């Protein structure tokens, strides 16, 4: 299963785990399964319109999914999905 890096602000929902495994063939499925395992995660990541929030970045193996295929970006078993706050740097 893909490995998902959990950012600090979400760890209260993941029992303080900084990395978890979540099944799925694409990013959308992985995030849906993350919600099943850790209820509450979804509403933190997505806004009311169902879009990834303005201040959150999702990467697959270091590539921003906005440059790939968004939530349809395919992921394999050995891939690393990273959720990070957009508000860093500069």
């Amino acid at each position: 299963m893909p490995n998902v890096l959990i950012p600090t602000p979400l760890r209260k929902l993941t029992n303080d785990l900084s990395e978890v495994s979540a099944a799925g063939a694409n990013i959308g499925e992985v995030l849906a399964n993350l919600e099943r395992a850790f209820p509450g995660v979804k509403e933190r990541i997505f806004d009311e319109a169902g879009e990834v929030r303005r201040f959150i970045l999702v990467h697959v193996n270091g590539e921003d999914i906005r440059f790939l295929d968004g939530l349809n970006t395919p992921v394999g078993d050995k891939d690393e999905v990273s959720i990070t706050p957009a508000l860093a740097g500069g």
Partner: protein
Amino acid sequence: MDKSNRPFFSNLKCRECGKLYEKKAIHVCEYDFGPLEAAYDYDAIRTSISRAAIESRPQTMWRYRELLPIDGEPTVGAQVGFTPLVKADRLAAKLGIKSLYIKNDTVNYPTLSFKDRVVSVALSRACELGFKVVACASTGNLANSVAANAAAAGLKSYVLIPADLEQGKVLGSLVYGTNVIGIHGPYDQVNRLCSEIAGKYGWGFVNVNLRPYYAEGSKTMGFEICEQLGWRIPRHTVAPMASGSLLTKIHKAYNEFVKVGIVEDAKFSVHGAQATGCAPIAHAMQRGTDIVKPVPKPDTIAKSLAIGTPADGYYAIHAMRQTGGGAEDVTDDEIVDGIKLLAEHAGIFAETAGGVTVACAKKLIASGKIPRDEEAVLCITGHGLKTQEAIAGKCGELRLIKPSLRDFEEQIYNPDMAATA
């Protein structure tokens, strides 16, 4: 603290939902991932701060102490700031504007860029919070500043930079004995890695988990501009944009000075400058939207501004729009011209970001966005000695002669000079 012991700096507060947080090493809201910002007790500050009080203090950025987010006295970078505000009449004439000032942070102490301001706050706060290891994601200037200020304070530091930075910026970090880590990839990848490291190890990343403190340091550039103009807000301010943080904090500084009664409310505009090879904020402004489209592969000589996913782009756009400001972007050739314009007409040698600011100001004046009969302040944020590669071979050649008067007269001396000698 004021006399009644009410802290001036009370909390961190989510800029989106307003939820309050303790003043810890956290930077985003748990609920909506919005940015946490320092929140102040302006009523308490109003009773402590005054023009006379500020004028009585040492000429550093810490003379605005009440409006900076630390609890005690600064322990790192206490001498930073209060750089010259230069009235640049020859450059004003060249650009065709009535009045022009350069806020000259090329001579900021100790590492010749505005980043010493933000680092001074971030590392002073890092010490208050008990960090022993500090770090940053940087396009160069921040790395220099973290390395120098951490060395002075006796903190261990790691600076993470894109692998292809200018030599001056790499050496300008290495010399302080810091750990310089070059990352294969653009800045935005460096940033993501730093977020992941910050989430896993207990380090104080100045622009990740310490960002709410760090970012506030940029306000001091705005405070100083007001004071140096004789306690008033300039009509136009032009700032370079990488993450967009500096511009939003100058906007905040002007508003705060009005709020605490230091300057009178006046109409002002803040304008943003980017390089065409990485202009996500300027392009969003020009498209009339606040949706910032990330740039996957920035390509510009202004490497210090090459942030494809600017953290504060959204807020920078709102600050510019609210104040009637504009945004421009300029090509690499225009950047070099901007550097030369500033050097030849104001005697100030700026790095590429300074060239961006001057070249964009030129466009804003030419288009009428900054009217010719008004005044503007240009924020020049870093020294040109750090980015020499950008202008090598583009500003004349060294002329070589033997140490002989005849050679001098034959090859250099022009009889026409006699009249003016």
